[in-house]
């Protein structure tokens, strides 16, 4: 009873109200700092037909504009796949480089290394590179969708939206 009376006293109520309002104002300010309009490259783009990408290669031509590698390999679970890896190191977000000679992605910032599959095997990176969405669009071109991502360690690479399987 005493406790309830204390909690309902004008003093406590007023200060609680003030504190609550202040927290809301703080959150609102944080929201103000998040821009709604971003001038960034499109998240969805066509990358040409699957035949442009030879088996066992990593296409680096899209890194500059869109920040993805297009990988065509059969090393991930033995399937013949084309998929798009985001060119962002999972350690601290530098852009790794594809070293064709050593068949690995190597990050210059802290030396993380990833296989052609995107799986991390050396250095401090805690998890594999992320795949982004890829699909065959109606006009026969491959289309990459960067707004969705697939993480291997979450078991998301089995999602068919994360790869395009080359048949034949």
């Amino acid at each position, binding site marked *: 009873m005493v406790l309830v009376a204390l909690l309902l006293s004008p003093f406590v109520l007023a200060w609680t109200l003030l504190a609550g309002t202040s927290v809301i104002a703080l959150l609102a300010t944080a929201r103000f*700092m*998040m*821009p709604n309009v971003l001038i*960034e490259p499109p998240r969805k783009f066509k990358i040409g037909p699957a035949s442009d990408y030879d088996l066992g290669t990593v296409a680096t031509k899209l890194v500059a504009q869109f920040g993805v590698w297009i990988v065509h390999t059969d090393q991930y679970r033995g399937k013949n796949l084309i998929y798009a890896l985001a060119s962002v190191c999972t350690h*601290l*977000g530098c852009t790794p480089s594809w070293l064709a000679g050593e068949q690995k992605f190597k990050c210059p910032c802290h030396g993380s290394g990833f296989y052609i599959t995107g799986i991390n095997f050396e250095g401090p990176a805690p998890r594999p590179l992320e795949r982004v969405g890829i699909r065959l669009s109606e006009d026969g071109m491959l289309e990459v969708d960067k707004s969705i991502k697939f993480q291997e360690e979450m078991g998301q690479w089995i999602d068919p939206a994360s790869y395009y399987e080359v048949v034949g």
Partner: protein
Amino acid sequence: MSIGEYIRDSQIWKSIFRHPAPYDRRNRVVVMLTNFFLHLHPVSVKKQGIALSYTWCMGGITFFLFLVETVTGVLLMFYYRPTLEWAYNDILALRDVTTLGIMREIHRWAAHAMVITVWLHMYRVFLTGSYKPPREFNWVVGVLLLVLTLLLSFTGYLLPWDQLAIWAITVGSNMARATPFLGHEGPGAQILNLGGFDLITNASDARFILLGGRFVGENTLNRFYILHCVAIPLVVAGLIAIHFWRVRKDGGISQPL
């Protein structure tokens, strides 16, 4: 009557400095009390309290470097535009075209020096035990000033918009992605969702607020510019005032009791 005496006898001089020149003991006391800039100091101090081998002068040097940074920084602002189109070119122009473009060199070197002197100031204050009662809280203010000095330097690092700048900031700010709960790759961020809708994504986390985007871009440049030139200096100036005021109120520079 010499020229010096003539000037000091004029109405203008007397209206500014309301006492004779500080040649005798009395006027040396008066000058400290009546001058706005000098009244930060006490009138007299213990001899060992101002010995360079005791104080290392590092706090004073840091403050002076802050003033140097303010002056050179304001001058640089006349030539620098924080946009992707112009930032790098304006720095190039400062180097190659502008008369006295070494203002940028002075600004950068003084910034490096300020980081070192502020560390050494902390080092000295620790080694003489000057954080002990009654000066505990002023040490806390000092730690805040040290952090803000590092942040000032960090935000300034991006402004030339060269390779060194954006990658240093990319590496530095990427740690914010991993902030517990507030970064989209930090532990605990996954818990913060409302009915399957993630509250913390790469477009709503701590790093997004800092950069104003998903990566270091034009918004980031503008944000860091504002932080560097306006927001942080204002806070620093306020804290410096408190820091100095407390040095006086807590009994001046620490001395054996």
